């Protein structure tokens, strides 16, 4: 199975080059992985339908419990059939659908990459691996929705889709990790988690909600559904494949897998039933208002996904069976219908059902195929969709959990609306509309047969699956059993007898047709209570609010003012440690303010110099007062008995002073104008606070000292082992020579940098840039003009 996924990846990588060279023939290459998967499936199908499973495991990151473990069981087989079967049909369809264009290689690559990711998703047994493929399908979907990237609507839809599914995906990741951590025995295998009852508790309730959030976003459930209609910006083969038959089923798939174990945990059943039914009704209601055939189908897909979520989420084995049948039926009819819309678009260059008129007569084969598929969608006997819906109604009618009646009622309402939009779709696509403005239809040519064959095959499958119910039964029964060991024998029936479900089906069909017949008053009513794009508006409101907040926060924290940055750094430096030091301030024993009057005098001089440097407005005076500080510190070294240090300090101070004076020649005499006094007061406060903090910390550190400092030992060994009378020299040139080497390097590099700057300056002295820039650079010192 790893091999099959890798085959998809390999072919995808090759596709762009092949597409550039051979044009449309690239699809002959990218169909290979799907066909190979189908062959592989055929080999294992017998075993798997008998209840066996094919497994395969490679280690990836054992430390994170992430393994490449795959498992094919009967439910997986059904999913693989959809992914690779419909995948192959869509690739074939694409080859005839697209006109020649230079980027078909890229399209084929993305489609093939998606197939591989989706295949991996339905075959993964490790729950983290599921997430890996889950995100990959989101990414390929993003790239495919935005494939026509010069259209702004496509880019926007792509972004919306990835943000919504991405957000859900991340919630799901947290949920899956929690489930893995809580699972008995710490297993991350989907199969084992489902078969070992999960541990109860608040954490699991949250985990379940998080996982459902992922599933709901992926499967376009209300209120996260709005990305799916937007995704219709993708080329129609993508809509048929990703956004109806496979990717949007990923959420349903996960719910189906987990429901048997988790339906009773936390809010699982309430959420899936509530959201599912709401989505089914709302999607179908919105489908009734669309004028673009593709959008009718898109909202229809949302509606059907809600139906599936409600069926699978309930967790009863009877409903798992119904859901499985519905999943199969939906994939067949919806992919077919999308392909039909593509055919109409391809031939008539329009999908507007107000303008299409009389296509049924011009394109009879297309119309027949569409009618078959649509009938399955509406649940008309003897098609597969009818039997699946019946099974669903029966499951809820028989369910013992409270609230089942309510759900059933909701589903019937949804089904009525489904019939209505199905009728609207067929009427919109094929009927003769006498009053249509600017009608299209009279001069539409018939499509080439290969363009309608894939849809035809799917429509026929819907019919065969219905007429020969045992055939579909052979696939659906073991698939549902793989989810959960059934309590009894369930079958798909073409003729169930006069039962409640049959009655409900009849109500759904009649009610829907009535609703369609009354379409004008219904439309008028819908216009009055227009709340259509609430979720969409909410999304973009949140999106814009986030951007605005980001811009505002960034303006606050990044004003570009160096003094602001410095204040932040210094305040943090002093305040944060000071808080934890509370109560631990100590003064070392025997501490005195000064050991000699000299120290006191020098201390005063240094302080005066430092304060003076901050007060003066003239650069020259500031440099001189700073010099006082430096020389004062050197004097302190003298008093302390460290002549080498003092000498060094004197030297450095003198050099710096001279350098400053040389630079000052090129700068204005005075600093930039003073800023407000409150700002100056704040700066003074920061400076004094940091000084006080360091002073107090120094005392406290000394007070905490328990051992003799190493410096004493160094001076002892300097002569004995280092062989030098001058301990400082031995330390600098021997004991800590490595430091000294580093400092020499620092000076050397600084020299290189200075030389480079001088050269760069000389090179452009003519254009006056350099003095300005030096001024601007140094000017940062006295003002917040960094940017």
């Amino acid at each position: 199975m790893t091999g099959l996924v890798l085959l998809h990846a390999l072919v995808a990588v090759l596709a762009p080059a092949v597409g550039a060279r051979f044009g449309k023939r690239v699809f002959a290459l990218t169909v290979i992985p799907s066909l190979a998967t189908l062959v592989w499936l055929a080999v294992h199908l017998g075993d798997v339908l008998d209840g066996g499973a094919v497994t395969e495991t490679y280690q990836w990151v054992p430390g994170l419990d992430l393994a490449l473990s795959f498992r094919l069981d009967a439910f997986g087989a059904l999913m693989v059939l959809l992914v690779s079967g419909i995948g192959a049909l869509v690739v074939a369809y694409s080859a005839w659908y697209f006109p020649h264009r230079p980027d078909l290689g890229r399209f084929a690559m993305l489609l093939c990459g998606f197939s591989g990711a989706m295949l991996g998703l339905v075959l993964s047994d490790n729950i983290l691996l599921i997430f890996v493929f889950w995100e990959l399908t989101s990414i390929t979907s993003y790239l495919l929705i935005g494939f026509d990237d010069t259209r702004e609507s496509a880019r926007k839809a792509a972004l919306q889709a990835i943000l919504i599914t991405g957000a859900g995906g991340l919630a799901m990741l947290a949920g899956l990790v929690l489930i893995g951590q809580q699972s008995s025995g710490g297993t991350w295998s989907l199969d084992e988690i489902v078969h070992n009852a999960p541990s109860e508790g608040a954490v699991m309730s949250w985990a379940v909600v998080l996982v459902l959030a992922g599933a709901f976003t992926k499967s376009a459930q209300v209120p996260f559904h709005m990305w799916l209609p937007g995704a219709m910006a993708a080329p129609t083969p993508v809509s048929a494949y990703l956004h109806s038959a496979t990717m949007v089923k990923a959420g349903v798939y996960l719910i189906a897998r987990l429901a048997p174990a988790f339906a009773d945990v936390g809010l699982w059943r309430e959420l899936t039933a509530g959201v599912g039914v709401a989505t089914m009704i709302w999607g179908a209601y919105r489908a009734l208002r669309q004028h673009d055939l593709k959008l009718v189908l898109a909202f229809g897909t949302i509606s059907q996904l809600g139906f599936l979520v409600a069926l699978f989420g309930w967790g009863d084995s009877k409903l798992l069976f119904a859901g499985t049948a519905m999943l199969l039926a939906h994939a067949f009819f919806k992919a077919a219908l999308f392909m039909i819309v593509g055919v109409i678009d391809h031939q008539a260059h329009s999908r507007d059902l107000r303008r299409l008129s009389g296509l049924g007569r011009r394109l009879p084969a297309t119309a027949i195929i569409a009618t078959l598929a649509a009938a399955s969608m509406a649940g008309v006997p003897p098609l597969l969709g009818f039997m699946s819906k019946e099974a669903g109604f029966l499951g809820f009618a028989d369910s013992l959990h409270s609230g089942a009646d309510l759900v059933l009622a909701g589903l019937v309402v949804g089904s009525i609306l489904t019939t209505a939009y199905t009728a609207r779709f067929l009427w919109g696509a094929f009927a003769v509309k006498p009053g249509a403005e600017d009608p299209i239809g009279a001069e539409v040519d018939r499509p080439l047969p290969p363009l309608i064959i894939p849809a035809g095959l799917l429509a026929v499958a819907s019919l065969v699956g219905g007429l020969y119910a045992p055939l579909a039964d052979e696939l659906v029964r073991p698939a549902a059993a793989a989810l959960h060991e059934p309590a009894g024998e369930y079958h798909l029936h073409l003729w169930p007898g006069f039962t409640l479900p049959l009655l409900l089906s009849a109500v759904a069909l009649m009610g829907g047709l009535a609703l369609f017949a009354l379409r004008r008053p219904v439309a008028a009513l819908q216009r009055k209570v227009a709340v259509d794009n609430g979720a969409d508006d909410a999304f973009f409101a949140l999106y814009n609010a986030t951007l605005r907040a980001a811009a505002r926060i960034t303006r606050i924290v990044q004003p570009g003012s160096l003094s602001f940055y410095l204040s932040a750094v210094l305040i943090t430096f002093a305040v944060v440690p000071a808080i934890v030091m509370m109560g631990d301030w100590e003064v070392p024993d025997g501490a005195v303010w000064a050991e000699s009057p000299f120290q006191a005098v020098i201390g005063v001089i240094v302080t005066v110099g430092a304060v003076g440097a901050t007060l003066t407005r003239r650069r020259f005076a500031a440099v001189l007062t700073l010099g006082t500080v430096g020389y004062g510190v050197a004097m302190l070294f003298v008093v302390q008995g460290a002549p080498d240090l003092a000498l060094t300090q004197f030297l450095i101070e003198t050099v710096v002073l001279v350098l400053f004076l040389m630079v000052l020649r090129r700068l204005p005499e005075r600093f930039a104008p003073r800023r407000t006094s409150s700002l100056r007061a704040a700066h003074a406060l920061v400076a004094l606070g940091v000084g006080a903090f360091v002073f107090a910390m120094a005392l406290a550190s000394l007070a905490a000292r328990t051992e003799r400092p190493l410096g004493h030992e160094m001076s002892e060994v300097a002569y004995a082992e280092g062989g030098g009378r001058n301990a400082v020299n031995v330390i600098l040139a021997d004991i800590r020579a490595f430091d000294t080497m580093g400092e020499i390097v620092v000076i050397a590099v600084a020299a290189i940098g200075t030389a480079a700057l001088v050269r760069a300056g000389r090179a452009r002295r003519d254009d006056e840039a350099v003095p300005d820039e030096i001024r601007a650079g140094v000017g940062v010192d006295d003002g917040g003009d960094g940017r």
Partner: protein
Amino acid sequence: MSWLVPVPVVLPLIGAALAVLVGRSRAAQRVISCVILTVTLVVSVVILVEVDSNGAMVAHSGGWPAPLGISLVADRLSAILLVLASTMLLAVLIYAIGEPGAERNHVGFQSAYLVLAAGVSASFLTGDLFNLFVAFEVMLTASYVLLTLGGRAEQIRSGMTYIVISLVASSLFITALALIYAATGTVNMAHIAERMADLPLGITSAFALLLIVVFGIKAALFPLFFWLPDSYPIAPSPITAVFAGLLTKVGIYAIIRTQTLFFPPESQHGTLLLVVAALTMAVGVLGAIAQDDVKRILSFHIVSQIGYMVMGLGLFTLAGITGAIFYIVHHIVVKTTLFLVGGLIEHAGGSSRLTRVGGMVRTAPALAVLFLIPALSLAGIPPFSGFLAKLALVDAGLGASEWAVVAVSLVVSLLTLFSMMKIWAGVFWNPVEDHSDDEYDAPPLPVGRLGGPPFMVLPTAALVVCSLAISVGAGPLYDLAERAASDLLHPAAYIDQVLRP
């Protein structure tokens, strides 16, 4: 084998000297730099293999035993980072050689670059707190030079912010160092660790925070990061790439090293670190989504992702620190790569602003691939390395029941994805929107099949392969990170190795 330990420091310094000596011959300089960095890489790999199988290696400079002399210590964490740093330095050097104008016409590029390499290696290897200060200075001075090479007006202006903040950070570091010396009487890190245990809790807590703040400036933690997004984007691409990949990581390394080595668990500030981590992630990513320039977006992301590393440390569990180390490994490679791609975009489109470039998925498809893989990785999309790093941290965070920080990290990762998509849509999809003339923008250049000059594209591609390799080989790599984390959580062995060989 412990004689190998100083080699990654000394060798680049020798190279820097040679580069100055042969300054008149660009070709000779290039050969020297490439050879030196290649040898450094090989030595680093040997050190890693040796350290991983036989435990930490210690070298005492000048033969003075610890704690008197300066010890250089290579343990697993140092060795891992050393290998990564040498790889990045080598790849970026080749890129700089390939980029027209990056190192040409600049006296001293090669020598300053090699000194930077030496400073980075020394920071990872030193076992002495004062020597760490020196290593920082070596690294920073070289970075000042590299940042302002070329001397363009805006470079010097933003370089000024960087230099002033760094100098202040250095003086705060030396202040903290003096305080620690005052209390413990030693600067040898193993020795400090031993003596710190005898100090009162209040003062050790304060020291722990002081060091977090001091290194946090370098690492760009909230609220100390402001300088970074203002100064990084202005430097030439290869320089920004190295800074982005390595310099902040030296800061985070210093935080991890000192917090785990010096401070007993009761004086550590896990919760505070988690709060800082969350704020760093969040403010960084909000800054990123507010930008419309490739390099500025990427610069803000450096900040945001530092938060993830701090989150791992703040958990102070084996899984947390392992996650942090794994995240650093992934981040160094991916971030460097993205800045290199940013340079390629600038090269091909004449600008790095989103409005001024566009449609490159058609004009430079190779760049699209080179961008998309590290970008998705940065956003934590599977199966790339960033996903595994994020998973490690999420797993560790949930395992420690730290719900809030995990929630923040997940939201931030969505926003990261958003900003990567913003770059993708702006650079590779849209048509060019803004055609106005701008003095800073170069005219777009013909890109050819590769998407740029071969010596720029090849090292970038090599790093993309590197990041894929991290993902493929994540199993053994995670185990290595776990062993390194275990070393950090049990510092007694480190201390013994240094003080009682």
